[in-house]
């Protein structure tokens, strides 16, 4: 297969920028597609060519597979990188891409399907000796099979969507009396989210960690694992802080879980980069949870401890190149931590914070990596995910990584919207994170205490905040008064904006670098 020359990136935000950068590093020409909301975004600016694909809501742009494939053909691209989310795990899109004569940078559609149905995946893994969470290996027709399982395994149990993920269609059941109602709600939520209302049940494992293994598999039958990521710090099943390696994983356990993950890749016919998620109990026993058939949000921590570029590896595998690394050469070096910076208000139940970024200062310095497409003046749109930046810190050991992360969180300034930065500081500086004593329930169970501390201030801090707000307000008033007395008209940008509103959006032609 000839090397790829031009890649269309079917995504937005930080992950689109991540792929643009990988393309540049490989001498490949990056092409972007964009919704009306992202016309002026950083990945669009840095691409060689950019094509409009529709309105801001994802269903009218980033989820339109036919429009995206057509854009790729028009741009002369030879491959599509889907990033994560949107169409990344859509087998029909992967298939349509291939049928259009383009390379899909990700797993083959058959493998995607084999691991995409959670019930099928559980059955497949169980058959090949991979330990699964105790539970049903069939979709439940009604409450009978679930109740029988729960009586034998004991409550609490959890109902999960066969087609799903991300907490949708998921319900914890603590007593048989609640089962019928929970099943009804899980079904309707799963049906609405995935178009498939199949539900199965598992024993609820509570004091466990979420530990996942990164794998790479090429088209020539070689597969390696790149060690684990610890992702137990989650709020309502959404990961907030990740690290590699995990304090809970010994070299022996890493080898064992890594072998299991490679086994999972083999039996499902997996190719390209993927992640096998496990729950790890207190005795260090891993249970297979699911496969994420794509590049993960948290891939940078693996890159930092292995020195590999995972997007580059994805592109090489998609181009048919054999893996250039051997398992015996891989061992984590140092420690890396990632904080997901979200446009959410940590003091008010993580309420979304769409709005304009008035000022932005990104952290930097030794060991710090920031993945973000944010620019001053950008509007964080309510149409997309709230992830606005990923802040990663690397250290020779975990203590150094923690100190660097705290330093970087202190440097990070975002004005205009609230972010989760204060929450991250509180968690990373806390005793539980320092000592590594946390599990998947930790964040949710400590949320009230964390929130209370976030708004705590002493008299001096409160006084200074009062002065800062009063002076800023005074300045804003004097500025608008000065504008009024000069008879100044609104600035040119505001006028242009108003004109654009009257005339409708600017021509949607897209552009190409000359």
């Amino acid at each position, binding site marked *: 297969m000839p090397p790829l020359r031009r890649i269309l990136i079917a995504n937005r935000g930080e992950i689109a920028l991540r792929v643009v950068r990988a393309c540049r590093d490989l001498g490949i020409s990056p092409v972007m597609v964009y919704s009306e909301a992202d016309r002026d975004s950083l990945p669009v600016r840095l691409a060689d060519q950019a094509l409009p694909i529709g309105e801001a809501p994802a269903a009218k742009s980033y989820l339109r597979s036919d429009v995206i494939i057509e854009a790729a053909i028009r741009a002369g691209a030879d491959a599509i990188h889907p990033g994560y989310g949107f169409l990344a795990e859509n087998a029909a899109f992967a298939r349509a891409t291939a049928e259009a004569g383009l390379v899909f940078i990700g797993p083959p559609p058959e493998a995607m399907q084999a691991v995409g149905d959670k019930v099928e995946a559980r059955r497949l893994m169980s058959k090949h000796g991979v330990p699964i969470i105790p539970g049903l290996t069939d979709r439940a027709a009604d409450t009978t099979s679930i109740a029988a399982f729960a009586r034998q395994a004991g409550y609490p149990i959890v109902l999960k969507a066969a087609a799903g993920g991300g907490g949708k269609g998921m319900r914890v059941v603590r007593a048989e009396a609640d089962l019928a109602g929970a099943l009804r709600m899980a079904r309707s939520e799963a049906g609405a989210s995935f178009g498939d209302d199949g539900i199965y049940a598992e024993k609820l494992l509570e004091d466990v960690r979420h530990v996942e293994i990164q794998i790479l598999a090429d088209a020539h039958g070689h597969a390696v694992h790149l060690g684990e990521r610890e992702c137990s710090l989650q709020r309502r099943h959404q990961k907030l802080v990740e690290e590699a390696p995990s304090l809970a994983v010994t070299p022996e356990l890493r080898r064992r879980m890594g072998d299991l993950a490679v086994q999972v890749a083999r039996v499902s016919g997996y190719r390209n980069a993927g992640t096998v998620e496990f729950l790890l109990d207190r005795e260090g026993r891993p249970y297979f949870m699911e496969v994420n058939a794509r590049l993960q949000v948290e891939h940078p921590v693996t890159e930092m401890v292995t020195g590999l570029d995972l997007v580059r590896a994805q592109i090489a595998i998609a181009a048919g190149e054999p893996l250039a690394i051997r398992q015996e050469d891989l061992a984590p070096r140092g420690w890396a931590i990632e904080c997901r910076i979200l446009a959410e208000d940590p003091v008010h139940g993580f309420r979304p914070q769409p709005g304009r970024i008035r000022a932005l200062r990104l952290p930097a310095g030794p060991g710090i990596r920031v993945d973000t497409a944010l620019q001053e003046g950008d509007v964080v749109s309510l149409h997309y995910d709230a992830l606005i930046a990923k802040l990663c810190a690397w250290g020779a050991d975990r203590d150094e990584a923690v100190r660097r992360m705290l330093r970087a969180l202190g440097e990070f300034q975002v004005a205009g919207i609230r972010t989760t930065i204060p929450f991250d500081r509180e968690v990373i500086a806390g005793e539980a994170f320092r000592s590594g004593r946390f599990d998947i329930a930790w964040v949710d169970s400590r949320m009230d205490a964390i929130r209370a501390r976030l708004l705590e201030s002493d008299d001096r801090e409160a006084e200074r905040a009062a002065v800062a*707000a009063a002076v800023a*307000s005074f300045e804003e008033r004097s500025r608008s008064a000065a504008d009024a007395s000069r008879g100044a008209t609104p600035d040119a940008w505001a006028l242009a904006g108003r004109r654009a509103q009257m005339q409708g959006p600017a021509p949607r032609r897209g552009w190409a670098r000359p």
Partner: protein
Amino acid sequence: MKVLARVGDREFALEVSRDGAAYQVSIEGREAKAHVEGHGAIRTVTLDQLTVETAAWPVAAAGDGTRGETAWDVVAGGRLQEVRLVDPLRAGRRGEDADHAGGPTEVRAVMPGKVVAVLAAVGQEVETGQGLLVVEAMKMENEITAPRAGRVTAIQVKQGEPVDSGAVLLTLE
């Protein structure tokens, strides 16, 4: 400029005036000189020789939206503080309004989004904190709760309807 600043349960009476490049600040009757460096929303504020970098920006007033009151977010040293600035001439009137409690309360959208569920009905008595509506934004569902106990007298939105920030969703009496 005279202003009352409310930070949590603390209240400060301030007077700010320009003094050359600096600001003369009278805070609770104490005189201080404040230096503010930088432009845009990230500044350094020096008060009593202590310099602290802050980011301050006005936020759309949510909920009561009392006239003459503005809300500011201030981040200093990684801590977030909510500051409400109140025009002292109007602050008294707000107190009077509170005395006439029982007047209608408009529950507004704090962000643009889509109404995915209406949990209350007109005529229903609700408790403080009870869920009234669910609004979806940024792939997240957010429950809008009752700011006080009362009776729902009007629901201005329907399920599936998009709403703008500040739009009245429901009226309580």
